[in-house]
């Protein structure tokens, strides 16, 4: 009781203190943000990226890592196009950063009219790579491994429904891979957001999905859905019974980046500041716990390492999109 009352007083104090702090100028020699930092989210409220940003914001604020607040702003429009254009227009701005996904590669490739060159953006830090697994409902007692899955999906032909996020999204790339690798003809039905996709599977409105662990975790823990295989190089600790596709002799590995990127032309001092800040966030207990819980992979990547990673990933996506016929 005493403890909770104290925390309530703390809440009141912090509201007041943060109001005062926001008005103070930065002290010290190294570059520090002098006004609230705009933290653009390339996706809508409530999705996986949005949740991660709100956690990052929470870590920065609760551990007093920065002198100013970080304010999330959602720009989900045009599969990230709106966010990319917004950041591109903020050339030279030291107070705008963005949390990005794989649409960072695919959207500029598919919409060249936007005039986005991701190599001009400022690399800050890759915080994680999210993984993908193949899921079915536990009602399907006949499906316990990929071989069963292939048999069942083949039998149903194009009546087998694979739910996923938008067309040409990550889920679509993986579905295409499965169709090709196993000679299937699954029907891809796009839904808005991974959470909705997970629910369609749990409600038996879809036959399979390729969700991230975080999206299926609730249903998985309740025994409603099960994972058959992982699109990772090695098995995930959370899902020890799900083999990798590599083990099944299909060499396919796919990740979703969870990366912080700065506006193009950000000053080197500012870029350095954000790199240090997000390195600290990366090493915090809260972020590490989140990584474990959501089965996130991929270590910290900064500076030119991150830029090289982007270039490689962009080329991979270009090939994939071309193979799908999404670009010419």
């Amino acid at each position, binding site marked *: 009781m005493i403890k909770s009352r104290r925390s309530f007083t703390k809440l009141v104090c912090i509201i007041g203190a943060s109001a005062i702090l926001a008005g103070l100028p930065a002290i010290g020699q190294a570059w520090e943000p002098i006004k609230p930092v705009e933290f653009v989210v390339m996706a809508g409220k409530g999705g996986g990226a949005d949740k991660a940003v709100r956690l990052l914001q929470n870590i920065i604020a609760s551990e007093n890592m920065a002198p100013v607040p970080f304010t999330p702003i959602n720009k989900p429009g045009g599969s990230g196009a709106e966010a990319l254009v917004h950041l591109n227009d903020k050339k030279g701005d030291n107070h705008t950063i963005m949390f990005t996904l794989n649409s960072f590669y695919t959207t500029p490739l598919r919409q060249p009219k936007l005039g986005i060159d991701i190599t001009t953006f400022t690399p800050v830090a890759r915080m994680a790579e999210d993984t993908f697994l193949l899921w079915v409902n536990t009602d399907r007692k006949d499906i316990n491994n990929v071989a069963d899955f292939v048999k069942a999906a083949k039998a149903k032909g194009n009546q087998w429904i694979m739910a996923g996020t938008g067309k040409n999204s990550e889920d679509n790339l993986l579905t295409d891979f499965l169709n090709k690798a196993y000679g299937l003809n699954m029907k891809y039905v796009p839904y808005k957001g991974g959470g909705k996709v997970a629910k369609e599977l749990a409600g038996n409105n879809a036959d399979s999905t390729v969700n991230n662990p975080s999206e299926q975790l609730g249903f998985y*823990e309740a025994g409603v859905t099960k994972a058959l295989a992982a699109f990772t190089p090695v098995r995930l600790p959370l899902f020890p019974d799900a083999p990798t596709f590599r083990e099944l002799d299909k060499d396919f590995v796919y990740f979703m980046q969870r990366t912080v990127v700065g506006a193009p032309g950000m000053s080197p001092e500012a870029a350095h500041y954000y790199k240090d800040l997000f390195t600290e966030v990366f090493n915090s207990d809260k972020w590490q716990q989140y990584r474990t819980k959501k089965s996130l992979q991929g270590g910290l990547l900064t500076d030119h390492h991150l830029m090289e990673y982007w270039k490689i990933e962009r080329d991979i996506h270009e090939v994939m999109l071309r193979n799908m016929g999404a670009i010419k």
Partner: protein
Amino acid sequence: MLETLGLLANGFTIVFEPQNLALIIAGCALGLFIGAMPGLGSVNGVAILLPLTFLVPPTGAVIFLAAIYYGAMYGGAISSIMLGIPGASTAVATTFDGRPLAKLGMADKALTAAAVASFVGGSISVVLFTFFAPPLAHVALVFGSPETFALMMLAFATFIGLGGDDIFKTLFSICIGLVLSAVGFDIISGEPRLILWDITGFLHGVNFLVLAIGIYGIGEMIWTVEEHNLGGGKSMLSEATVTVKRTIANLRELLSSWRATVMGSFLGYFVGILPAAGATPGSLMAYGIAKQISKNPEEFGKGALEGVCAPEAANNAASTGSMLPMLTLGIPGSPTTAILLGGMVIWGLEPGPRLFIDHSEFVWGLIASLYAANLFAVIIMLIFIPVFIKILKTPFTILAPIIFILCLIGGYAPTQSMHDVWLMVVFGIVGYLMRKLDYPLAPAVLAIVLGPLAEPALRQSLLISDGEFSIFFTRIYAGPIMVTAIILLFLPVLKIGYDKFRHRPA
């Protein structure tokens, strides 16, 4: 049943801890204010205050945010009624009749009605939530695209079926709303579409609040200016004074709207539990149906008390309802619960079917806090009605610029882009012209809310069925809903035929 009551009692012991009680009262008051500010709905309120909640334990945090959510549902009605600007998207339907009532000098009556209906809606829904959560969660889970589309059809049908208005003008208005709702990004094809004049601002689509504040807030103001012929310093309202006697009389009059209120409560709750629907469609549908079942449908839009009660009961009920898919499925039932879901991640809670078992203290504390928040919000709102009325007595020449600024802030807040502010002004002018030409505006608003839900659902269903429309009739939930929608749709035609038949010259 007994077990549920035991858990609920446990929840109440958590709620009655002084700290939590203080959080509820603070949350309700804050929510009321946030909801009353145009454009600053519960979504923004919860998003802004989320970072503060890590200072209290998760149960306290969610109680605080839920109280804000609830308070905002009450508060949304305030500016809808007083200024004609929807305070939040959920309160758009409240402007339809709340505003005319205020103009007739009965703002206090409308506000009382909104408060009481909200209370009834909140109470009914939270009781339903307490006792029927698991079976309803199952319904929400199996509710797929065909069901969603059938439900959307039902919503449209209730609006087209609204007798009185010119049916072609209603359809035209719906079409405008649908076209606007299609702007932006098409998730099915994965392509941007209708990016008018290649303006990047259209990439995020046309925000529903931009349209609603434009046509109701700005359009309304132009209208009032014209009506008053720029009447210097004239008060916008007639003699609305608040006395105890008048308040009691208001409450008594409300009894006649009980049908609309109860209907709104149940409808709002059920629409609320369906993933992605939320309180806005719920309140709009409740308005449509209230008009259908009313004894005086011709009064709707001109100041019918039922037209305030139904959507207000529904939006509160829906806000409770949308907690259900959030907690049990991890799917937000509304934009606000999407943020709450983000909060749960920060607090280290995993929403899903196991949450009720693994974190029963959290869940039941939340449910119990809804009972308390509901009670405090209605008390706070009733107490402040005289203050609101005082504000209304400000001369129009002073009030008008304030409303205009509030509109601009409201248009800017959701997306923080100037593009939307300009768009809103354009909608205000267009809305004014449409009103001049006697086009109903409510159907356009309905369409822009429901369009983005109906369209993907339709296309997903047809993808699944290979283009067979039978999918909407052969499924256990979709079938009856679709049939009801079609009957409602053709009701006006049948009515006209029947009337012609009856009044045939002998």
